[in-house]
């Protein structure tokens, strides 16, 4: 196990996980696809610069230098639905990495299913990509971008999206991508081990304890419909549960707006 001093805290790189840091790559999720076939175990790919960073459904992800960009690529057992629950595992790990590096929890919260908010703004994004059918997955890539140093301007993000913020602007704390990687990898390994042993229940509980707008009115929008209701909980399958005028609705796929 490799030890690294981080302030006064010794960071331990988790056993069984590979670590590669690249000066530049097109996109860490694209690199994940290229190396997935030859993987011996899960591996973190961190890029100091991405030339073709991307977000959901082909959207660009603005990724200035000094910000964090990494992908964890793994070949998970289990169903594609299990893979989707890693949205919660990854966002919990991000939350804990921020806490480990800044020593504070105030202002941090999670937005369904996997956005990390800092002072109500979006400080990080997660995009999971997998390939497979009814027979199982060939690989899962969990791409994570964090605005450590700079946030894109409001004009650069989708209309109606949460305001982008950076860790530096909001807290005055400067963290390097490599230090962030070490904290994130450690936090992810902890939650992933819990998920592997006890399944979703403890992940769900921890996630709900950090959830934004629980008990408040929120809107869930899909390409074809919109549901507004009181954010009651996240159920045992990871669905967003809203209490609407017509009753309780469990939503699996949607964008959430506050």
């Amino acid at each position, binding site marked *: 196990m490799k030890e690294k001093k981080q302030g006064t805290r010794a960071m331990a790189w988790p056993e069984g996980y590979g670590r590669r840091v690249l000066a530049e790559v097109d996109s860490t999720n694209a690199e994940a696809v290229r190396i997935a076939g030859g993987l011996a175990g899960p591996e973190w790919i961190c890029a100091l610069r991405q030339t073709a960073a991307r977000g959901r459904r082909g959207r660009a992800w603005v990724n200035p230098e000094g910000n964090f960009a990494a992908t964890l690529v793994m070949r998970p*057992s289990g169903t*594609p639905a299990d893979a*989707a629950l890693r*949205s919660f595992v990854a966002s919990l790990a991000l939350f804990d990495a921020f806490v480990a590096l800044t020593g504070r929890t105030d202002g941090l919260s999670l937005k369904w299913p996997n956005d990390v908010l800092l002072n109500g703004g979006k400080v990080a994004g997660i995009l999971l990509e997998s*390939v497979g059918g*009814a*027979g199982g997955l*060939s690989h899962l890539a969990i791409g994570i971008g964090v605005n450590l140093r700079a946030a894109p301007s409001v004009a650069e993000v989708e209309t109606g999206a949460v305001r982008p913020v950076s860790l530096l602007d909001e807290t005055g704390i400067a963290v390097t991508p490599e230090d962030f990687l070490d904290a994130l990898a450690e936090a992810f390994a902890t939650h992933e081990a819990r998920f592997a042993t006890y399944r979703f229940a403890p992940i769900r509980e921890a996630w709900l304890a950090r959830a934004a707008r629980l008990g408040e009115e929120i809107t869930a929008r899909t*390409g074809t419909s919109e549901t507004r209701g009181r954010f009651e909980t996240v159920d045992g399958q990871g669905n967003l549960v809203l209490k609407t005028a017509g009753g309780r609705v469990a939503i699996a796929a949607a964008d959430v707006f506050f």
Partner: protein
Amino acid sequence: MTGLTRDDIDHILKLIDGSDFDSLKLETGDLKLELRRKGAGPATAAPAPSAPAAPAAPAATVPAPVVASGGGSEVPAPLLGTFYHAPKPGAAPFIKVGDTVTEDSVIGIIEVMKLMNQVTAGVAGTVTEILAPNGELVEHGQALIKVQPV
């Protein structure tokens, strides 16, 4: 055994009806018979929370459901979510009717909880029908496309 009579098939269907099984795959000599209970889907019971993770079944043991009505194989949704025909809005669809696919060909994307899962065909053949509309929610096990196996 060189063939099956209608009575034989009726007998097998009754056996399945009285069993816990949803599908039957029988291969003997030149004969290949696949039967599936109508509406058969994945078990709805969730695993007990305390159960340790089961190892993934090898891909080969989970065949894509096949319909016997001469319409070819239906590729089922491996998970619930929003089905997309193309990699991104405005892009060409992954496949269209008449295309040839292999088992590993990507036929679409299903999104759930920010997971974008590229769905592979799981069967080789010619695409005869796109069943699930673009951008709409599909259930686990719902038929996405129809493929005439080669």
